[in-house]
C-alpha cells in the first residue's frame, strides 16, 4: 500500500521520538563498563527510594484516574447538555486547565492552600481550623493539585464518547416505565463503561508521566517520591551515566504500552454494540 504522504511525519517522529526511546532501551541494558546485562535494572529494584517512587507513581495514577473519572464523568455529561455559552466557557476552561500542568499551577495552589495560603488563612481565621490542607508536596496534597489538570483531561477525553448516549434512549426508558436511576443502571452506565475505563487508563498513564508539576511541588527531600522525579534527579545529578533514568523511563514506556493495550481492548468492547 501507499505510505508516501505519511513518510515525512513517520520519519520525523521516528527521529524525534522513536530514536530517543530506543536509545533509552539501549541504555537500560548497556553497562558502564561495556557489554550488556541486567545490572542497571537490578540496581533500581534494589534501591528502596526507586521502589518508593514506583509505588508512589502507581498509587498517584490509580487515585487520580479514579477521582478524575468520578468527577469528570458527571462534569462531561453536564457539559454536553449545556447551551452554547456555557459550553464554550467550560470547554475553554477544561482545555486550558488540562494543559496547565506546570509551575504556574504549583504556584497557584501554594498561594491558595499552602500553610500561609489564602484559603488556609481564611479557614483558620473564620473557623479556627488549623492546618486544613495537607502540604502540596505530600501524597494527598499532590492529589489535590493533580486533579486540576486531570479532571479536564478526563472530560476532554470522554466528551466525544458521551455523544454515543442518545437522548432517545432516555425517553425510551421512560416510556418503558423505567425510573431515571434504572435507566442509568441498565443502559447508561453499561454503555459508557468502556469509555470511562479507557479514560481512566489514559489519565492513569498521563499522571504517571507528568513531570513539571511534580518538579514544582515535590522537589524537597520530605516530599512524595515519584518515578519522574527520580528520573529528573538522575538527570540533574549524574554526570557519568543515566542508566537509572533509562531504566525508569523504560518502565514508564512499558506501563504506557500495557495501558494502551487495555485501552484498545476496552474500546473494542464498546465497538460490539456501536
Amino acid at each position, binding site marked *: 500500500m501507499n505510505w508516501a504522504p505519511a513518510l515525512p511525519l513517520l520519519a520525523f517522529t521516528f527521529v524525534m521520538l522513536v530514536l530517543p526511546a530506543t536509545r533509552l532501551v539501549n541504555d537500560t541494558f548497556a553497562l558502564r563498563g561495556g557489554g550488556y546485562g541486567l545490572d542497571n535494572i537490578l540496581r533500581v529494584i534494589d*534501591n*528502596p*527510594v*526507586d521502589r*518508593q517512587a514506583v509505588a508512589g507513581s502507581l498509587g498517584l495514577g490509580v487515585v487520580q484516574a479514579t477521582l478524575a473519572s468520578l468527577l469528570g464523568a458527571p462534569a462531561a455529561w453536564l457539559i454536553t447538555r449545556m447551551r452554547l455559552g456555557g459550553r464554550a466557557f467550560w470547554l475553554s476552561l477544561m482545555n486550558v486547565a488540562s494543559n496547565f500542568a506546570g509551575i504556574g499551577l504549583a504556584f497557584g495552589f*501554594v498561594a491558595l492552600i*499552602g*500553610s*500561609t*495560603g489564602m484559603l488556609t488563612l481564611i479557614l483558620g481565621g473564620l473557623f479556627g481550623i488549623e492546618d486544613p490542607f495537607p*502540604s*502540596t*508536596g*505530600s501524597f494527598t*496534597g499532590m492529589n489535590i493539585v493533580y486533579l486540576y489538570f486531570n479532571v479536564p483531561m478526563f472530560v476532554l477525553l470522554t466528551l466525544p464518547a458521551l455523544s454515543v448516549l442518545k437522548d432517545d434512549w432516555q425517553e425510551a426508558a421512560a416510556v418503558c416505565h423505567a425510573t431515571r436511576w434504572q435507566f442509568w443502571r441498565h443502559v447508561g452506565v453499561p454503555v459508557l463503561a468502556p469509555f470511562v475505563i479507557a479514560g481512566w487508563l489514559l489519565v492513569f498513564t498521563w499522571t504517571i508521566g507528568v513531570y513539571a508539576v511534580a518538579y*514544582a*511541588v*515535590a*522537589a*524537597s*527531600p*520530605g*516530599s*512524595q*517520591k515519584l518515578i519522574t522525579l527520580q528520573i*529528573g*534527579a538522575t*538527570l*540533574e*545529578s*549524574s*554526570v*557519568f551515566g543515566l542508566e537509572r533514568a533509562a531504566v525508569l523511563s523504560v518502565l514508564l514506556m512499558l506501563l504506557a504500552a500495557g495501558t494502551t493495550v487495555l485501552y484498545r481492548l476496552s474500546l473494542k468492547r464498546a465497538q460490539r454494540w456501536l
Partner: protein
Amino acid sequence: GGSATASGDYDWAAAPDESKIAAQGADLPTYGLAPDWANYGEVVKTFCAKHGGACKHADTDMSSAEEIQRIDAEKSNPVGTASDIGLMWGPVAEAKGVVPAYVPPSASRLKDWQKAKDGGWVATFVGVPSFVVNTDKVTNPPKSWADLLKPEYKGMIATKNPTSSGTGQAMVVAAAVANGGSVDDLSPAYDYFKKLKDAGNLSDVKMSEETLEKGEAPIQINYDFNGLAQKNALKAKNVNVEVIIPSDGSVWSPSGLIVNRYNTAKGDFLKGFLDYVLSDEAQTLFAKFGARPIRSLNGDLQLPADAKANWLPDAAYSAVKEIEITKVNPERIVADWEAKVLA
C-alpha cells in the same frame, strides 16, 4: 585534558589575548551563573568594562552535574561559557574532560585542593550552610543542628534536595562535620537527617524565597550569603528574616568556577575571566554580596570595611570548620542519601 581533536587547534595553555576579550564577551551565555547569584552580574560587568566591552550576560539555571553534562553534550556546537559549581564537582568536571588545561596566574594564591590539578577550575568564594529563619513566624529560632530536632519545628524545615542540588550536598557535609563526622565519613549526617525526617520536622514544601516570605517553610537550610540577600530583600516587604550559623558547627563550603573547554571561540575571554575572579576587585565584589571570598578565607586578602557591611559578625562563625571538600564524591552522596535517609 586537552586533546587536539575536540578543542581544535586552540592553545589553551597560552596566555589570553587581551585584545579579543571585549568582542568575545559581547554575547555571554552562562550555565548556573545567574547575575543575581553571588554578585556575578557585577563581576561579569566589571570584567567586561575593564576590557572596554559590554557583556550581554544570559544565564540558564542548572545544577552542577547538569552543567558538566550540558557542556559535554554540546561539545561540537558549544554554547555555554562559564559555570558556577559546588567545589566538590571540580574533580568530576576534570574527569569528564570538559574543562581546559589552563591554570590562571592568580590561582597560585590558592591552596592545592582549591584548584584543578591540570587547570580549568578554581574556587571562588565560600558559603556556610546555615539556618535562614522567618522570625515573624518562628519566634524562637533554632540555634543549632540539635535544636532542629525539637518538636516545636515540626514540618517547618525546608532544605534543598541533596540528590540534585549542590547546596543540599554542602548541607550534608556541614551536618556530618557538626555531628562528629568528617569529609571522609559523612555517615553521622545521614543518621541525623534520618532522625530529622522521622521526627516529621522536614517540610515537603519547596525551599524558596517565596515560601520563606509567606512562612510556608519558615526555616530553610541555605548558604549564609543567600540568606543575607533574602533578609535584605524581604526587609523591603516588612518581613523579618534571621540568618543563624549553627552553634554546633558547620563548614566553609567553597563554590568554584569552571569554563567550557570546547568553547574555543571565547577562549581568551574565559582564560581572562578565570584569572579575574581571583583578583582583589572580583573577590571584593563577592564579599559585598555577603559571600566570603576564598582568598579572604585563606587570609590572603584585606577587605575594606564597607565590603563586609553585609556580613554577620565573625563571632558567629566560631564553630565553622575548614575542610577539603573536594575529597567528597557528590555521586556518592546521592546514593547514600537515598539509601540511608529516604529509604
